[in-house]
């Protein structure tokens, strides 16, 4: 595309007040034209859908039938229906288990433990451990999902062969535990890298002092390490919670089943809106999810600000 020309940019040197700023002589007009495509794309495909949800959630929009072509305004009915829906309550509870169990506890504790154990190791073992943990994180979700289905398979799965428990249908008997463990496996890499970097910033002299004073590992962690990384803990907890809350990969493993026993929020919204075709109802859930995301993101930004303020004081 040809950006509209700005007279000032074309006619020699700009006014002096812009000299240090607009080094290539772009000018306001061209600058606006440069920003416009990105802003339009963001406005149409990111911001508009979110605002539109406000309206869609108040209609009886459906995927098929009369309400598909001519949706009616139903006010707050959808919100009342969602909040009164037993499946929604179950989904909320399962999501809480999923986020707290896999992200807040699982990934964080395991990631920190690996980072701590590997802190002063170099060489092959460290590369192997980090490589495997990272591989779990970077491989495509649908490949990983099948690997876990194969691992947990009732008849010939590797886990049953290893434990000597043939015929145990893990995904049917313990679907929630399966996706929680799966997500710990999938996402530990982030916590491992983050805490690895944070531990690396703890002055070695502090650790050395703790060692000479005969402090136990637990005491060292509590008194020398934790105070130094506290800011990172809160921000990373919020970040992994946000990601885990929005994760759709469990759908690829259990599809919410059996009987909705692993139907976390992301799967619930898919099932009601696109599976059952109740788009208005689904839009109401979408808005609730966006609001939950907003709360987590605002807490995150606040924690980030507190951290940088403390860093500025220190």
């Amino acid at each position, binding site marked *: 595309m040809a950006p509209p020309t700005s007279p000032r940019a074309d006619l020699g040197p700009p006014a002096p007040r812009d000299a240090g*700023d*607009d*080094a*290539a*002589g*772009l*000018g306001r007009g*061209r600058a*606006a034209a*440069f*920003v416009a*495509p*990105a802003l339009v*794309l*963001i406005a149409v*495909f*990111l*911001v508009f*859908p*979110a605002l*539109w949800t406000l309206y*869609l959630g108040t209609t009886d*929009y459906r995927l098929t039938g009369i309400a598909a072509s001519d949706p009616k305004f139903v006010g707050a009915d959808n919100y009342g229906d969602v909040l009164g829906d037993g499946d929604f309550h179950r989904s909320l509870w399962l999501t809480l288990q999923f986020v707290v169990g896999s992200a807040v506890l699982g990934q964080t504790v*395991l990631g920190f*433990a690996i980072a701590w*154990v590997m802190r002063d190791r170099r060489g092959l073992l460290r590369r192997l*451990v980090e490589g495997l*943990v990272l*591989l*779990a994180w970077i*491989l*495509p979700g*649908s*490949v990983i*999902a*099948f*690997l876990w289905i*194969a*691992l947990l*398979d009732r*008849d010939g799965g*590797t886990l*049953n062969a290893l434990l000597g428990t043939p015929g145990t249908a893990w995904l049917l008997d313990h679907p929630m535990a399966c996706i929680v463990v799966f997500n710990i*496996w999938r996402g530990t890499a*982030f916590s491992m890298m983050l805490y690895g970097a944070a531990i690396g910033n703890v002055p070695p002299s502090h650790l050395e002092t703790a060692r000479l004073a005969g402090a136990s590992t637990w005491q060292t962690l509590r008194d020398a390490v934790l105070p130094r990384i506290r800011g990172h803990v809160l921000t990373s907890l919020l970040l992994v919670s946000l*990601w885990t809350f*929005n*994760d*759709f990969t469990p759908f*690829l493993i259990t599809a919410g089943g059996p009987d909705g026993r692993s139907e976390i929020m*992301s799967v619930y919204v898919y099932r009601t809106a*696109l599976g059952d075709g109740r788009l208005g109802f*689904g*839009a109401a*859930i*979408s808005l609730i*999810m*966006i609001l939950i*995301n907003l709360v987590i*993101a605002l807490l995150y930004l606040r924690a980030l600000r507190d951290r940088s303020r403390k860093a500025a004081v220190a």
Partner: protein
Amino acid sequence: MNETVREVLRRIGLATFVSAVLGFFSLPLLWLAFAPFDADPGISASLPEFTLHNFQLLMDNPYALASLRNSVLLAVGTAALVVTAAALAAYALSRVRVPGRDALLYVLLLLSSIITGTAAMVPIFLLAFNLHLVDSRLGVILVLTGGLLPAAIFLLKDFTDATPTSYEEAARVFGASPLQILRHVVVPVIRPGLATVTVWTVAQVWGDFLMPFLLLRDPDKAPASVIMYTFYTEGGQPDLPLISTFSLLYSLPVVLMYLFVSRRYGFRFHGGIKR
């Protein structure tokens, strides 16, 4: 004495923990390493009876290679759009004083992390439906671009802010037009930033399942993530030789990209916005 016992116990504990971690993280991956080369792959991981015949089966499957091509189309299309739009916007925001630009970026970044594909799947689906972008690759590309752009602009603006303006000023003294300066001075200087954003975008799109699953209907247009899912959810017994080789081929580019990036730039993928 007591010290020695404690030290020994500590070492045993450490070794147990490290072995458990290695076991936990490698166990699901074993199947991916062995099954593709096994003459008769089962669902459990076992040392293979070596063969490359499974890859022949992969070549013969009508959907497998076509879906990888679709993944490439989506990834390249999105990356081209994201990098171009983000570079233009980031440069202008970095060099030209626009009131409230920091607040704008901040808000956009916040929006992109809360309006995720999962949370907003209903309005995104309806938007694509009303714009006649359902079952269109362009629709998927546009939706993904909208979500990735804020972070890409943010990254590139950071990068541009860190480069001195003296090259641009010098070029200007010699009478280069603004667009010439952009092409011949700015682009080469921020090239590492452009490469970073490209790799990041390709990685995000390559693994993405939800958007193509939501927006594409025709299996001929489906990318590898969706075809992989249909391989094991549709039609009776899963075809293990096909699934295993396909998984390997589909995973390989991500691993190569990761190795390339960590070698070349010495940094790691950061999570960014997962959609």
